[in-house]
Every structure is written in structure tokens, then in C-alpha cells.
């Protein structure tokens, strides 16, 4: 089976002032469809940087990334935006949702960008919100939901338009342990039942329990992969 994600010797250096930080020092990694991969490692080891580059939010200084059949270096910014919209689901640590939109509208937001009809959006939003355990909360605004519920809405949005991969960056960082467990359980369930490919960056040891493949980064390099 060919990989949905292929990282080839990815390097990323940040320059802030006179200090150069080598966030990624040549990372090569393949992820196949249907995998549930955790990306762990101490704070500052480059997890977010790697996810951002895989997700087309940032560009590497060296190496390249392929998502499905597209090498990201070959894409313009606008093509990258389309790729993110159509093929990648994101779940961030916080500020995932648009505060003025209801849960259902947030879930339907990307579908709306894709030009899907109102009816289709509503149906799909309800279905996906049901599947993440938020039946009946369609019309709540983010502020009316708990942190755990908000993250579920973010997950629902990420999977709503059937992306090739879901990238989650510290999705449990702001949650208590019960909500963390529930969210990770949800991701696992989506992975197992719907075959969603998931890469989750987390330094929360719990995340490791739910993922089936563990990639550990240290100082911008892959330290272990099992």
C-alpha cells in the first residue's frame, strides 16, 4: 500500500533575530492510509512544525512532503489552501472554532467553502456531530460548550468532508483527563470504524495509549518509530 503521507528529509530552520533554531533536521516518515500515528517528544522538539509542514501550513527549508499524489513544494499558496480545505482535517489545541457560528455551522464551514448545498451540509453536520457524541448540540455556539465538547466539534469538522488525513496538534492539552480520554477514544473509534488516517502530536503520555504507531521526535529528528 502506498503512503498517504511521505516526508522526505524535511528540514525547517526558524530565524528569530540572530538566533537560528533548527526545528526539523531532516525528517523522513511515511504514513499509510488508515494508520493512527502519535508524534511525541519533549516540548520544542518540532512536533508542531512537522504537522504544520505536512498540513501545508508552513513550508520546509529542505526536503519535501507528499500528501496523496501531490508534492507540496510544487503547489502554490492557493493550491495549498485548496489541499487543506479538501484533503486535510485539522484539530488544534485551542481556538479551533469560529465563535459566532453554531456547532453545526462550524462543522459545515469547510463544506460551505467547498460549495456544498445547505441541505447537504446540515445533514452531514448532524450525522458527524452524532458520531462524535454531540447529538442535540447542533445549535450551540462554542461558548456554550465545554472544552471537551468544543474539541469534539473540531474533530467533527475535521472529518466532515472526508479528508485523506486528520492532523491533531495537542488536541487534549486544554482538557481534563476524563475529557482527554473521551476525545482520544473518539479519535481511535473514528480510526478503527471509519478508517480515518490520524496523526496526533502530543506530549501527553495518554495519547500513546490510543495510537497504534508511535513516532518520537527529539531535537528535530526521529528518535524512534514503533
Amino acid at each position, binding site marked *: 500500500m502506498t503512503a498517504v503521507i511521505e516526508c522526505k528529509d524535511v528540514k525547517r530552520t526558524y530565524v528569530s533575530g540572530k538566533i537560528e533554531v533548527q526545528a526539523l533536521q531532516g525528517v523522513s516518515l511515511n504514513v499509510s492510509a488508515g494508520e493512527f500515528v502519535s508524534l511525541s517528544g519533549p516540548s520544542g522538539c518540532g512536533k508542531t512544525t512537522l504537522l504544520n509542514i505536512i498540513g501545508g501550513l*508552513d513550508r520546509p527549508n529542505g526536503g519535501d512532503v507528499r500528501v496523496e499524489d501531490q508534492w507540496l513544494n510544487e503547489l502554490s499558496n492557493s493550491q495549498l489552501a485548496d489541499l487543506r480545505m479538501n484533503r486535510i482535517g485539522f484539530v488544534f489545541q485551542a481556538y479551533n472554532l469560529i465563535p459566532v457560528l453554531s456547532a453545526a455551522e462550524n462543522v459545515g464551514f469547510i463544506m460551505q*467553502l467547498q460549495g456544498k448545498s445547505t441541505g447537504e451540509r446540515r445533514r452531514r453536520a448532524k450525522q458527524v456531530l452524532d458520531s462524535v457524541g454531540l447529538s442535540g448540540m447542533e445549535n450551540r455556539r462554542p461558548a456554550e460548550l465545554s472544552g471537551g465538547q468544543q474539541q469534539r466539534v473540531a474533530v467533527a469538522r475535521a472529518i466532515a468532508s472526508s479528508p485523506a488525513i486528520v492532523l491533531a496538534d495537542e488536541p487534549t492539552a486544554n482538557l481534563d483527563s476524563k475529557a482527554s480520554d473521551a476525545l482520544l477514544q473518539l479519535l481511535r473509534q473514528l480510526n478503527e470504524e471509519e478508517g480515518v488516517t490520524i496523526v496526533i502530536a502530543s506530549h501527553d503520555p495518554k495519547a500513546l495509549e490510543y495510537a497504534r504507531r508511535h513516532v518520537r521526535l527529539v531535537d528535530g529528528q526521529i528518535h524512534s518509530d514503533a
Partner: protein
Amino acid sequence: MMLTLAWRNLWRRRRRTLFSIVAIAITAAVVVFLPSLQAGSYSSMVRTYIGFTDGYAQVQHKDYLSTPAMRDSFQVTEALRTALKDLPPDVSVGQRGVAYVLLSSDTRSIGAQILGVEPEAEPSISTIPSNIVQGDYLSKNDQVVLGEVLARNLQVGIGDSITLLGVGHDASLAADVLTVAGVFRTGITDIDRTLAEIPLKRFDATFAMDGERHSIVLNGGDMAALRHEVRGLRPLVEEEGLALRDWTELQPSLDAAIRLDATSAVLIYAVLIVVVVISLLNTLLISVLERTREFGMMLALGVKPGLLGRIVWVEIGLLSLLGVLAGMLGGVILTFWLGRQGIEFESAQAVFEQYGMSGTLYPELTSLTLFAGPAVIVLALLLAGTYPAFRIQGLRIIEAMRAA
């Protein structure tokens, strides 16, 4: 979606938005009401000025305006007479002859302008008949009415005789003896000092006019109707080889004064709008920049920077539309209310009266005064809004999402 998003974003900061709307509304109300007040004062000024003798428009010999000479006259053709007769009743018409003469009483001789008028037509085209302060308006063929200052300078009163000396249409000597029937006061010194009116029939005879006229005056209470009728009449008048001149040509200095006043007012409104827009720009910018992180998230989801910019722009557009609509409503209500009541300018009363106007102004709403200012406000805000929109479009995702 853009509209929903923009609308809801607007009400996230209710108080700030309301404050902005109020600021825009007040500005819009000001730029509706004050120009309406100006329009009202202009039209009352114009009405007053054209009311004395000139009328709204005149049919003249082509050369008459630049050099008002006795010989620059014309015959009223049958076609023209018919067209004038067919004008609606709210347009009044009067024929005139004009001459510059020497008037003499027993003691004095003074140069004056004589209008030969149709006494029965004059009351509906001129305010001279209603401004008679002594005696009566023309009722007999040998009568003359004089401006107040002219009568005083000639040292004549009602019933006195004066002699007239001038040059007739055929270049012969024109002489006549007239009886003073009345004295009028317009408040305009120029008119009161130099103008005299006699019946057109008498004028014809005295100046050997042989039916020639110097002008046909059109006037009435409804300026819009007048404008319309004058436009309709023009082709025929020009076909006759004559000129149809409206008040802007008859009273170019009045027109120029109004234009000057309007221009300086427009500048002041422009400054007001610029000041308000610049002070709002700061608020707009804050409201956008404080959402940097949210915008970064939206970019991450695949929203194109252009769309983000448009969302911000629509938001600003909505805000300005709300404010401007509220302000227009306020301005319209104020204008209509005061348009019926009138605003008394007691301190300016004396000045107004000098120009033959009352001290009460009636604001007048026109489509220009209603829409021009508010439209400029919306445009200025949208223009200002391009800056925050532009800032948002330049956002780099990674940095935006790291922003606090």
C-alpha cells in the same frame, strides 16, 4: 455565509459596534440635514431674487444679455404665442419692453430703467406689485410706479407728474409725461433706486416699439415645473432664432455666490467625514487585529486570504450601511420636521431682510442632499476598510496562530 459571518461578528462587541454606528449615524444625519438647510436657503434666495423682476427664465434676443440694447428686440411669432398659451397654469408669462431713460420731476433728473409691463400679468411673475408701499400698482395707461429710493431722489409722491426722456426703437426721441401711481420697496437698493414700471401699451407707443419685445418672462411657484417647461420650450425658442435664458444666466452672480457657498460647505463636510472615518479606522483595525488568531485558524482550514479580506470588508460595509441608514432616517425626520416648522434665525433676520428674505429658513430635502453625503461616508469607510482587509490578507498562518 459571508453576510451571516460579518453580521454576527459585528455584534460580538455590541457596545463598540453601537458606538461606531452612532458616530456614523450622527455624521450622516449632519451631512443630510445641513445640505438640506443650505438647499432650502438657496432656493428661497433664488425664489426671492428671480421674483423681483427677472423671473425664472426669459425669452430674449440672442444679443440682449451681453448688451441690453433697445434694438435687440424681437416680434412674438404666432408659433411662440401658441406655445406660451399652451403652458400649464403653474407657469406664468409676461411680455416686457425695457428702456434706459432720464426721469425728471420739477426739481430733479435721474437716470432710470423703465420696464414696460403687462399690469394684469405682473402679479403672478413679479413681487413688485405686492411690494407697493405707497399708492397702488399700475391701473391706468399713463401711470408709473417707482422704486422707493428713486421716488425719494426725484422728490415726488403719489399723483405727481414726471417726464420721461429717452430714445425710441426707431432711434427717434421718446418723451412722455406720466403720473406716479405707486411706490414699491424690494429692499434691494439697486432695484429701489433705478427701477420704474409703466404699462406695456404705453411703452409701445412712447418708444415706437411697433410690437417689438425685449423679453418674455416665465415664472411660477414650482421650480421643478418651471425647469421642465423651460426645457420643453427651448427648441422652439431657438428655432425662432431667440435665446431662452434661465436665472443662472440672468443672475450669474447669484448663481456664482451659491456655487461658492456650496463648494466651501462641501469642503467642510468632506473634512468632517474624513475626521470621523479616520477615528473609526482605529476601531476597525483593533477589531480585526484582535481576531488575528481566529483568522489564522480560518486560513489553516483552507479559507483564501482574499475571502478573509472580503469578510472584513463586508463587516465594515454592513457597519457603515447601518450607521448611514440610521443617520439618513434621522436627517430626513429632522429635515421634514423643520421644513414644516421653519427655523428662525433671529440674529440673522436683519441680514436676510436686506435681501428681501424673511428670517425663517425651510430646509429642503432633495435627492442630492439625501444621498450624496451618506454615499460618500459609505465609500470613505469602505476605502478605509481596505486597510484592515489588506492587513488580514497579508497574515502568515503560522505567525497568526501563534499570536496571543
